[in-house]
């Protein structure tokens, strides 16, 4: 064999010499003094920097925690759950407290100043409510008379008359109906002939042809609804304050929307969690049995699942609700008997593939009991996809609950869920959009949080993403 020679000469010689001249810290000195000594067996791995080895759960948690959106979503969910539990306990009103005097009061109030410290808010039904400067609702103003012919409400506040004249808008609307009828007959509407336009500045010439639709938009958006005069003097809105009594306003029966939304959160979250939990139990049980025992039993059980899953479920939830009657328990029950199928499929597929894996066989060979194999080996490995599926079922159950409540099959009054709140608000939507806005907003945020969290959980548990 030819003598090998070094091709690239690293400056080892010098280093070695230097080191020999001045032996420094023990570790490097040992190497420097004797670079050609055999490495001690114990030191081979001693200094190897290696990744900390993480368990599956730790790894998932680590990945989940790095996902900022899911952590934020988790915080939102936690906040929602805590508010739903605790806020109704100490809030000033209960979800069923009514005060018809204070019905349909929005969260933002345009208030009129009558006196030094007397303020009044006029509702959309022309009721006068005395309020404090800060926005606390105090009482209804005393009604003196309701003049239906002249379209005027007269109240008395502090011994002086408060007059609310809503004739302009009212007459405009009446006129609008005539104009619409005119248009339907195919006649042109000229700007000059429209009476309510006289009181309002506009860019049309007298004989411009205008459409009823354009007029309606002006009427709805530009015309003042009413004129307020106090002690024979016309006054304008003083300022806008937040409703201090009902922070999110009140509904058509004068109930606090905030607390009803919180109470609705209880219902919706309860439905979500319970449905997911019951589906989990049924699904894991059913799927676990089918998957673990396999064979003919599995075949039969899965045919049943196939048939159940090809039945459109929403129809059956509705049908069961019809049979059981509206109510919280019925919703949970209806969802539980219909939505377990997906979970059963997931669990079965997982168990089936895990059962064939070597580690289960190894456990069997080592003499582990069926129970131990199930608890120690199968269930922990199934948990990942099952948890993802559960976290997706919660928002979908909440969705279904809202859906059912919305078509009138949800919890019954005075109880509230987000769906019934939205349904209640639907009637007065054009006048009181806030009644729809708050429950819809809270519901959407919560469902969004659940969706984002389950997305994050899925990504964290996905073995394909693990490196």
């Amino acid at each position: 064999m030819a003598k090998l020679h070094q091709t690239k000469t690293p400056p080892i010689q010098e280093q070695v010499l230097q080191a020999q001249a001045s032996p420094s810290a023990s570790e490097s000195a040992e190497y420097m003094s004797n670079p050609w000594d055999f490495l001690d067996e114990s030191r081979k791995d001693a200094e190897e920097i290696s990744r900390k080895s993480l368990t599956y759960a730790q790894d998932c948690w680590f990945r989940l925690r790095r996902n900022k959106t899911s952590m934020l979503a988790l915080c939102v969910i936690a906040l929602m759950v805590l508010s739903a539990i605790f806020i109704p306990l100490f809030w000033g009103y209960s979800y069923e407290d009514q005060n018809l005097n204070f019905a349909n009061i929005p969260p933002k109030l345009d208030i009129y100043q009558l006196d030094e410290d007397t303020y009044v808010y006029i509702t959309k039904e022309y009721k006068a409510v005395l309020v404090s400067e800060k926005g606390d609702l105090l009482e209804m103003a005393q009604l003196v008379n309701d003049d239906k012919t002249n379209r005027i409400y007269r109240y008395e506040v502090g011994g002086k008359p408060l007059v609310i004249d809503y004739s302009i808008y009212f007459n405009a609307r009446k006129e609008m109906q005539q104009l619409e009828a005119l248009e339907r007959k195919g006649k042109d509407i000229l700007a000059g002939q429209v009476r309510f336009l006289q009181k309002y500045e506009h860019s049309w010439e007298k004989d411009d042809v205008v459409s009823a639709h354009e007029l309606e938009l002006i009427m709805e958006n530009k015309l003042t609804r009413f004129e307020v005069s106090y002690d024979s003097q016309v006054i304008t809105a003083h300022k806008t304050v937040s409703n201090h009594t009902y922070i999110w306003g009140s509904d058509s029966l004068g109930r606090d929307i905030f607390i009803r939304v919180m109470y609705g959160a209880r219902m919706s979250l309860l439905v979500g969690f319970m449905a997911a939990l019951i589906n989990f139990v049924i699904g894991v049980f059913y799927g676990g049995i089918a998957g673990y025992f396999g064979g003919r039993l599995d075949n039969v059980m899965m045919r049943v699942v196939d048939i159940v899953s090809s039945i459109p479920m929403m129809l059956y939830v509705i049908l069961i609700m019809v049979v059981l009657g509206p109510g919280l328990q019925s919703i949970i029950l209806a969802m539980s008997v219909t939505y377990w199928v997906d979970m059963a499929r997931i669990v079965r597929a997982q168990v089936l593939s895990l059962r064939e894996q070597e580690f289960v066989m190894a456990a069997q060979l080592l003499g582990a009991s069926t129970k131990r194999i199930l608890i120690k080996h199968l269930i922990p490995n199934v948990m990942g996809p099952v948890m993802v599926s559960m976290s997706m079922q919660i928002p979908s159950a909440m969705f279904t609950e809202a859906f059912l409540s919305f078509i009138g099959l949800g919890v019954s009054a005075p109880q509230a869920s987000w769906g019934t709140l939205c349904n209640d608000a639907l009637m007065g939507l054009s006048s009181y959009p806030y009644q729809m806005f708050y429950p819809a907003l809270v519901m959407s945020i919560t469902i969004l949080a659940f969706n984002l969290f389950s997305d994050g959980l899925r990504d964290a548990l996905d073995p394909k993403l693990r490196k």
Partner: protein
Amino acid sequence: MSRKILEVDQLRTSFFTHLGEVQAIRGVSFCLNEGESIGIVGESGSGKSVTSLSIMRLLQHPGKVVGGEIRLHGENLLQYTPQQMRKVRGEKIAMIFQDPMTSMNPVYTIGNQIEEMILEHKNLTKQEARERAVEMLGMVGIPSPEQRLKNYPHEFSGGMRQRAMIAMALSCSPQILIADEPTTALDVTIQAQILRLIKKLNEEMNMSTILITHDLGVVADVCQRILVMYGGLIMEEGTRSQIFYHPRHPYTMGLLKSIPKASDQKQRLIPILGTPPDLLHPPAGCPFCSRCSFAMNICREKQPPYFKDADGHRVMCWLLSEEAPYVEAYEKQKGGVRA
């Protein structure tokens, strides 16, 4: 001496994961001559597949070539535009992959997939492409190729599919064929057939081949030169006889000791103990240090240089240094572990 067709020079490739940079290849250099067939051997994670994907520039995010050059006929492929690179892939360098089961698109017929490649690179009509595809399938030994052309991949067996893959790869007569573990997913008997096929085509078509495998037995038959990779580095490079009969690197020796021999009934297989290094934090010294039975202090601290002899046998190991002590066990194995 034949011409160099492909030169890989100080290639470095890393994967940028959320844990940090994993340095999969840490400075690999080798060259491929015209008509030559070389083998890259190493265990999983040694960087051999990443090397081939780097050459083809097929690395997927988060993998990235971070340094070095890959020269095809003297031109650096790393500076090619994607357009130019497409001309290289398939036409100049073709590749076949490990798993024939998943390497073909399940929703198109075999014929469609072969013709597609021919039409991409050759100025032929569909009819001519079809004829070429039939010819290629026949060449790789698929019976009644006209009919088989109309089959879907799932209607082929594993070995047949790999043959079809080879037919496809060779359909544009590439200058270089990179075969990445072409036989790993196949039965032993089929393995031999496929290897023989690759060898035959290599000779017939005067094509250069890079065969990547973890199995020394596979390269023994086919390759003239062998590169042993470990921890993202080439540990030893030599001709077939140098590697098999005069191994110099303890890792190569370990690999040789761990393959069974049919002749010797009483031979014991000796595994290499330990696990490969973590390339997220590559060791400062020799990557094999922690598993090497001849490891010295210097091995842990300093990466060895290549020690080369006149025949082109190069080894990255401190034991070959003139200063290294005489180790009897090592010197014994130098003569070839199989003797």
